[in-house]
């Protein structure tokens, strides 16, 4: 039914003019990244005096910036970015898995188990996306470090998790859940009803249906959300810095990157090298999951 339109679109996209436009946009969007890469490879003196495009006239290359980033310490840390890289992985992997596990279960329940008020709950979760996370930072930090009390009665104990990864995991999970539930709900709700009913008739429990039917079918949606969440957490500075206090024992990579440019912002040749080091891991994730990515981009957002 949609075939004529689809070929129409395909023809429009493959016209030389459109190809040229796409090429142009791609080049324009890549130029800043190229500038960053070139800057990271130039000696400090060149970076301070001339723009990165000057490299093409006077090509001096050095890996000294990368050496500084990876091996020169600071703040009582001797091995450069490595501890922060470990922290970033230790923060990002759980902070990606937790919301996916919770949200996929919640999405299944909201989509396939009819109960009174399920629509209202879904709506409230969806509406929570409106709350900006910046607003929740200080109250959440207070809750973690001091607990909650009403007139001397402790409702929520102080967790004493300072200097660990746990506050960052919890914060990221909380901030990710509304979007995760929304996306996965829309995808899971569109799975064929017959499939799930057939499984129920054969005596499968809800957990069995979830594990054997819903999860495998929802893989593209799960993978696409995993990429989004992974990139968001990996690149996040605000939440990581707020909940770890920037200490080398638990702070993620971006908080170290922000320090690299120095007190007076005059070491940005090191900052660019640091930025490229931090890009490596997301690139690995993206390329290993990219076949899900395009499929998953549409998952949950449009019908079909």
């Amino acid at each position: 039914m949609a075939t004529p339109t689809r070929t129409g679109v395909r023809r429009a996209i493959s016209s030389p003019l459109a190809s040229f436009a796409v090429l142009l946009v791609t080049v324009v969007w890549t130029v800043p990244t190229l500038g960053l890469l070139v800057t990271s490879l130039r000696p400090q003196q060149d970076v301070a005096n001339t723009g990165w495009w000057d490299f093409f006239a006077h090509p001096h290359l050095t890996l000294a910036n990368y050496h500084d980033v990876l091996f020169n310490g600071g703040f009582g840390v001797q091995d450069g970015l490595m501890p922060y890289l470990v922290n970033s992985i230790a923060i990002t992997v759980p902070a990606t898995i937790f919301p996916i596990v919770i949200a996929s279960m919640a999405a299944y329940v909201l989509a396939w188990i009819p109960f009174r008020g399920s629509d209202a709950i879904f709506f409230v979760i969806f509406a929570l996306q409106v709350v900006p996370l910046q607003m929740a930072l200080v109250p959440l930090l207070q809750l973690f470090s001091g607990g909650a009390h009403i007139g001397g009665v402790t409702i929520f104990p102080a967790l004493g998790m300072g200097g660990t990864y746990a506050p960052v995991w919890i914060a990221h999970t909380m901030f990710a859940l509304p979007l995760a539930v929304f996306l996965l709900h829309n995808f899971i709700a569109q799975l064929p009803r017959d499939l799930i009913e057939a499984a129920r008739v054969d005596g499968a429990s809800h957990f069995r249906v979830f594990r054997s039917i819903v999860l495998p079918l929802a893989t593209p949606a799960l993978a696409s959300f995993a990429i989004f969440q992974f990139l968001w957490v990996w690149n996040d500075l605000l939440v990581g810095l707020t909940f770890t206090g920037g200490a080398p024992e638990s702070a993620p990579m971006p908080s170290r990157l922000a320090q690299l440019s120095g007190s007076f912002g005059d070491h940005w040749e090191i900052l660019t090298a640091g930025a490229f080091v931090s890009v490596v891991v997301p690139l690995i994730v993206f390329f290993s999951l990219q076949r899900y990515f395009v499929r998953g981009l549409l998952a949950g957002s449009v019908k079909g």
Partner: protein
Amino acid sequence: MHRPTLSGRRAVAVGAAAALTLLAGCSNSSGGNGGTASATPTLTGDCAPFQAYAGHSGTTVTMFASILSPESDALERSWAKFSSCTGIKISYVGSNDFESQLPVRVTGGNAPDLAIIPQPGLLAQMVKTGKVVKPPAQTVANESKWAPIWKSYGSVDGTFYAAPMSANMKSLVWYSPKAFAAAGYQVPTTWADLMALSDKIAKSGKNKPWCGGIGSGTATGWPATDWVEEVVLGKYGGDVYDQWISHQVKFSDPQIIDSMNVVQNWMHNPAWVNGGFGDVSSIASTTFQDAGTPILTGKCSMLQQASFYEAQWPKGTTVGPNGDIWAFKLPAVNPSIPTPVEGGGEFVAAFSSRPEVQAVQNYLSTSEWATSRIKQAPGWVSANQGVDPSIYTDPIDQLSAKYLTDPSATFRFDASDLMVAAIGSGQEWKSFTAWFAQNQSVQKTAADIDAAWPQ
């Protein structure tokens, strides 16, 4: 493209070797610590001077500041001996979001033990949270070696909270002694001489006398506040300056308008600026880090900027009275004001009264620690009068220390750091940027700032 790969491999190998050496160094020093880890030990040998801080071995004090590498590396080296002798580990974290992170951490209940605060206004804000702990008696006693005005900058509503730790001097004009000698210019010692020299350079037609840049990311505008502050202090003196900070003297007051007009004829003078960059509006688009580079190429003669600007000169630039670059003290606009010196500094505030925190606080307030820090690296000055001025190795540090410890000087702290934050690190920056970027009038600039003053 082959060469970098090879040198990269070598770089990795060298780095790995360096990391191993550092690791080895670490394990050695921690082994040495074991011997002093008994209760109330007596420190002997070269650890003896740290006896007063002994007895807290195995503890950790967290410290949060805005100082980043490489300056922070010198800071950490300066207390390395203290740490290895007393066994108190100082866990230092620097952030260039310090001003916004500290309030978040303090109100969130996650305050560091010690914070190094460069703005008395931020200190006052922290004291209002009720989380700042008063310093121990020894710190108060050590503080008396600073000029009395410093104590008032570390105090909030008359109560002393934070001892000053470092000082810097803003009233400097950077110039090239070689270029001055070649052109036959004399270093001006009065404001009238400075203006006459600027006019002379402008009329020579070779280059503009002044260059400037107020770009500084989200803090764009701050160097312009320094120019007005210098003139207010140098023309109307410390009392008017203090009243201006508390808004008893408004920006639209004739004295402040007059001071801004002096700046208008100086850094906003199309015939005098912006050497090497363009017209007056280029001051707003030039970063403060880049502002002085035309002096080295002869396109500009002078730059008003603080002592810490020394770090911005490219490697290989000799800084000294006969070098490529040197600085003279900005003369007082009104010669009857005794040596006006505008500066800044950093204050150590404590959020915990644990004994090891107080030991660190005491140590940082001594002239012994200041001496240890000065010996690590140049670019750092203490206004502690107990510091021997001969230990400064850097000529700019010597020059700054001379004025900062001068008891007869009229020292005042950077006014924009003392005004309420909405003005001093908000509206004043914005309005002064508009003054330069859009050629906004002095009257409108002053009126805008007054209108934004929180009631």
